[in-house]
C-alpha cells in the first residue's frame, strides 16, 4: 500500500503525534495532581493514551501498544470511578510517560523498529500493579506472556511470545460438512495444538430460521485469531481433510492493513461484522478499521488522493460505514484534532522558506537601489510596491516560525514537581505570559538553560519549609516563570521568593576558585554574574540536581549563542530573579545602517533609542558625553575598530539601550532603516568581538552587524579601567 519512504514519513508523523500526546497526558496528570477530581482531565488523559495505543498499533509498534495498554486499562477504571489517582500513582504514571517518551525516541523511522528495555518496563508495570492493588493480574501478564498468550487475548496483539503476532483464519463451511461426518469443533481443538487461540467467533449469519433450516447442513463460519509460530502450510494442513468442504483464508501475523480490508470485503458477512471481529481479536485497531474503510470509500469514489495524507489526517476522515459505537468513539477522538486544526510542516522546509525570503529581501533592496540610480519614477514606484510586499511576506514568514512559549513553560510543572519532591520542599509554580510568541528555533535552544535556572532556583534559591517559616515566609515556596515583549526583545524571567544570592559567599568562592583577584573591587551585580563563570558552584553539599558547578556557565553560553543577555536581580532574603533578554528571531532583523568611512555597519533597530549630531569631541576611544545633563558613556566606533574615520562632514551619535544600559555609538554617517538578513560569520571570524554577523546590502556590499551587548561590555571594561577610583566610579546604568 505504501512504499518505504511514505511509510517512514507516516511513522515520523506518528512519532511527532505521539510526543504531543505524551506531553498532553503529562499536562493532564499534573492537573490531576492538583485537582484529583477534574473529570475533563481524566477523560483527556484516557483519550491521549487510547489514541496513542491505537496509532501505535497502526504501525505495529507492539511494545508501545502493550505498554500503553496497561496505562489505558488503569485509566479506564479511573474514568469509570472505580479508582482514584493517588499522588504515588501519579508519580508512577509520570515515570511511565517518560518511558513512553523514550520509546518514541527509540523508534527508528526507517526500519520501523522499536528496541525496548524490557526489564525497566516490567519494573514499571510491576510497580503499577502494586499501586493498583491488582498485583497478580497485571504482573502476571507482564511476566508470563510467553507461556500464556490466551490470557492476553483482549490485548491488541499477541506479543511477548516468539511469534511476531497473530494469524487470522477465516473459515466458511460447505453445507455438507456435517453430513460427511466432520465436526468443525474438532478442527478448532486440533488448531489449539499449534498455538493459542486468542480469539474465535462463530458466525451464524447465513443460518435460516429454525423452521426452514436443514439442521444437518452447516451454516457456520469461524473467524479465528491464532498465536502460533507454525508456518502457513502447517496451519493449512489442519484443515486438510475438509479442504473440499470449506473456504479457508489465512492471513499471516501483521499482514498489511489492506489485506485485512480485502478480507473484510470478500467475506459474505457485513463489513462491520468482520471488522469488529478483527478489532476484538486485536488484529486491527478501531482506528485502522475506520481509516481503512474511509480510505476505501474514498478510493472507491475514484478519488486518487494520496493515501498517505489520508492516513496522516487520522481521525479527520469521517468513517463511512462503521457501527454506531465505533462512530461515537471516533468522534470523541476527533474533537481534540479539530480544535487544533494545524498543519505539521517539517522545520527545514520553513527554514528554506525563510532563507529564500531573506534572499528576496536582499534582491528587492538591490532592485530599489538600481531604480533610484536609473532615476525613472515609474521604476522607483514599482520597486517600492515590490518592497512593501516583500516586507509583508517577510513578516508573515517569520510569524510562521513563531510559537507560544507556553508549551515550554508548561513542561516545568513536571520539573518543579519532581525536583521539589526529591528535595522535600513545597513549591508552587506560577506561569505568566504563556502566550508570548517566540521563534521556534530560539525556544528549542532555550529549554536547557531554563531548566538549569529552574532547578537552580529550587535547589539553591528556595529554602526548606522550616527555614522559610523561621524567616516569616509562607512554607510553600513560589517560583514564577514570566515572559513578555519589551522593545523588540523578548524577556523571560525566572524568579523565586527564596533567600536570594549570597554576595559575600559568591565572592569568597570566586576567590577560592581563582576566578577573581582577592583585591578586586566588584559591584554587587558583577559579583552576581560570577556564578556564570565556568566551574563555579557555591553549594556546600553536591546534590543530585545541581551543585556540581555545571549548569550556570552553560546557561550563559546558551544565552550568548542566542544573541541574548542575562541579568540577575537579587534581594537578600526576599528572592532572586534571572532575567533573560532575547531577540525575537534569529534570521531577519530590522536594522539601522550606519557607515564609518566606507565601511557599513548594521545595528539592530530595536536597540536604537535616538540619533544625535555630535557637537562635542571625545578625547579618546571611550569616554563620556553630556546627554541632557546626564553622562552618556560613548564609544568611537571608528577608533574602536581602528578604521579611518571620514575627515569631512559631521559625525553622529546613535544612542542604544540594552536593558537598563545605555550608551552612545559614534559613527560617521547615518543611512536609516534596513531589513537585514543575518548571515552567520564564517569560522574564521566567529570569535570577533563586537560583531555578531553580516549581511549583504542591495548594492552587493557587505555590512557587518554589530553585537551591541559585547560592545557595551567592552566599553564598560575600558571605562572601569580608565576611571578607576579615587572618584566614585560612574556606571553604565542609565535612568
Amino acid at each position, binding site marked *: 500500500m505504501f512504499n518505504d519512504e511514505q511509510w517512514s514519513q507516516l511513522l515520523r508523523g506518528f512519532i511527532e503525534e505521539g510526543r504531543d500526546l505524551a506531553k498532553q497526558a503529562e499536562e493532564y496528570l499534573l492537573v490531576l495532581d492538583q485537582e484529583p477530581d477534574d473529570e475533563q482531565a481524566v477523560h483527556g488523559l484516557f483519550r491521549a493514551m487510547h489514541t496513542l495505543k491505537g496509532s501505535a498499533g497502526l504501525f505495529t509498534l507492539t511494545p508501545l501498544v502493550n505498554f500503553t495498554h496497561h496505562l489505558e486499562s488503569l485509566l479506564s477504571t479511573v474514568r469509570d470511578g472505580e479508582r482514584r489517582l493517588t499522588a504515588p500513582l501519579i508519580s508512577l504514571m509520570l515515570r511511565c510517560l517518560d518511558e513512553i517518551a523514550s520509546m518514541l525516541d527509540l523508534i527508528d523511522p526507517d526500519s520501523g523498529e522499536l528496541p525496548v528495555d524490557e526489564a525497566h518496563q516490567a519494573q514499571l508495570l510491576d510497580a503499577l500493579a502494586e499501586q493498583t492493588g491488582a498485583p497478580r493480574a497485571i504482573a502476571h501478564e507482564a511476566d508470563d506472556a510467553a507461556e500464556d498468550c490466551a490470557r492476553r487475548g483482549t490485548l491488541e496483539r499477541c506479543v511477548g511470545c516468539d511469534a511476531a503476532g497473530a494469524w487470522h483464519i477465516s473459515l466458511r463451511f460447505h453445507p455438507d460438512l456435517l453430513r460427511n461426518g466432520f465436526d468443525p469443533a474438532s478442527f478448532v481443538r486440533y488448531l489449539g495444538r499449534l498455538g493459542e487461540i486468542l480469539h474465535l467467533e462463530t458466525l*451464524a449469519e447465513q443460518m435460516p430460521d429454525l423452521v426452514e433450516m436443514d439442521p444437518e447442513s*452447516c451454516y457456520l463460519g469461524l473467524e479465528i485469531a491464532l498465536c502460533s509460530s507454525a508456518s502457513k502450510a502447517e496451519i493449512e494442513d489442519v484443515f486438510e481433510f475438509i479442504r473440499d468442504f470449506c473456504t479457508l483464508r489465512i492471513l499471516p501475523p501483521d499482514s498489511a492493513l489492506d489485506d485485512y480490508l480485502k478480507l473484510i470485503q470478500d467475506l459474505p458477512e457485513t463489513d462491520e461484522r468482520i471488522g469488529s471481529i478483527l478489532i476484538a481479536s486485536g488484529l486491527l485497531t478501531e482506528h485502522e478499521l475506520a481509516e481503512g474503510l474511509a480510505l476505501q470509500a474514498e478510493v472507491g469514489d475514484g478519488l486518487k488522493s494520496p493515501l498517505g495524507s489520508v492516513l496522516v489526517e487520522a481521525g479527520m476522515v469521517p468513517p463511512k460505514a462503521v457501527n454506531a459505537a465505533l462512530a461515537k468513539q471516533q468522534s470523541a477522538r476527533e474533537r481534540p484534532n479539530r480544535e487544533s486544526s494545524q498543519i505539521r510542516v517539517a522545520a527545514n522546509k520553513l527554514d528554506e522558506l525563510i532563507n529564500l525570503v531573506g534572499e528576496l529581501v536582499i534582491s528587492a533592496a538591490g532592485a530599489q537601489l538600481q531604480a533610484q540610480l536609473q532615476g525613472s519614477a515609474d521604476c522607483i514606484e514599482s520597486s517600492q510596491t515590490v518592497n512593501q510586499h516583500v516586507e509583508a511576506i517577510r513578516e508573515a514568514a517569520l510569524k510562521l516560525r513563531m510559537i507560544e512559549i507556553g508549551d515550554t513553560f508548561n513542561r516545568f510543572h513536571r520539573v518543579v514537581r519532581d525536583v521539589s519532591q526529591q528535595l522535600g520542599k513545597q513549591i508552587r509554580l506560577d506561569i505568566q505570559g504563556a502566550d508570548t510568541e517566540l521563534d521556534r528555533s530560539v525556544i528549542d535552544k532555550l529549554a536547557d538553560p531554563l531548566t538549569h535556572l529552574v532547578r537552580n532556583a529550587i535547589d539553591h534559591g528556595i529554602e526548606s519549609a522550616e527555614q522559610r517559616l523561621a524567616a516569616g515566609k509562607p512554607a510553600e515556596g513560589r517560583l514564577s516563570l514570566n515572559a513578555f515583549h519589551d522593545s523588540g526583545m523578548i524577556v523571560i524571567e525566572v524568579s523565586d521568593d527564596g533567600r536570594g544570592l549570597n554576595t559575600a559567599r559568591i565572592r569568597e568562592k570566586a576567590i577560592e576558585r581563582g576566578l577573581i583577584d582577592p583585591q578586586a573591587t566588584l559591584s554587587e551585580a558583577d559579583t552576581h554574574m560570577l556564578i556564570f563563570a565556568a566551574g563555579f558552584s557555591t553549594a556546600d553539599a553536591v546534590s543530585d540536581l545541581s551543585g556540581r558547578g555545571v549548569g550556570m556557565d552553560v546557561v550563559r553560553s546558551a544565552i550568548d549563542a542566542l544573541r541574548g543577555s542575562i541579568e540577575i536581580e537579587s534581594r537578600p532574603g526576599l528572592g532572586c530573579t534571572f532575567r533573560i533578554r532575547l531577540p525575537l528571531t534569529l534570521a531577519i532583523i530590522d536594522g539601522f545602517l550606519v557607515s564609518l568611512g566606507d565601511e557599513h555597519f548594521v545595528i539592530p533597530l530595536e536597540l536604537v533609542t535616538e540619533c544625535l549630531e555630535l557637537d562635542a569631541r571625545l578625547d579618546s576611544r571611550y569616554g563620556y558625553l553630556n546627554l541632557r545633563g546626564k553622562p552618556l558613556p560613548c564609544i568611537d566606533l571608528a577608533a574602536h575598530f581602528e578604521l579611518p574615520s571620514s575627515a569631512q562632514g559631521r559625525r553622529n551619535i546613535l544612542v542604544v539601550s540594552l536593558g537598563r544600559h545605555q550608551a552612545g555609538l559614534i559613527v560617521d554617517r547615518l543611512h536609516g532603516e534596513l531589513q537585514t538578513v543575518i548571515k552567520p560569520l564564517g569560522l574564521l571570524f566567529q570569535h570577533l568581538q563586537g560583531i555578531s554577523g553580516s549581511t549583504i546590502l542591495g548594492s552587493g556590499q557587505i555590512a557587518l552587524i554589530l553585537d551591541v551587548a559585547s560592545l557595551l561590555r567592552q566599553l564598560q571594561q575600558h571605562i572601569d579601567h580608565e576611571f578607576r577610583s579615587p572618584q566614585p566610579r560612574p556606571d553604565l546604568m542609565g535612568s
Partner: protein
Amino acid sequence: MIEFQQPAPLRLDLTGSLTIYEVAEAREALRAAFAGARDGDWQLDLGAVDELDSAGAQLLLAAQRHVREAGGALQLNRAGDRVRELLALLRLNELLPGGDAHVQ
C-alpha cells in the same frame, strides 16, 4: 438418541445426545414445542445431555434465535461439562446463563 419432555409450558428437558445424528429429530421436536406454546421465555434443561457437537450447537443457536425473534428468550440450564466445553470452544457461551462470549 434424544428425548424431549415438556414438564411445563415453557420448559423442555432434553435427555441423550444432541449431535448430527439427532439434530433432524430434535429440530422437529423443538419446532413442535415452540409452535404449540404461546411465545415467552423458554427454559431448556440440558442436565441429561451427555454429548453435543457442532451440529447440536448450531441447532441450539437456531432455536435461540427463533425464540428471540418471537420476542422471548431461550435459556440453557444445567449444562454438563461436555456441553460447556464445546460451547466454550466455539465461543458460544452466551447461550449459557450468565454466559459471556469471551469467557474461556
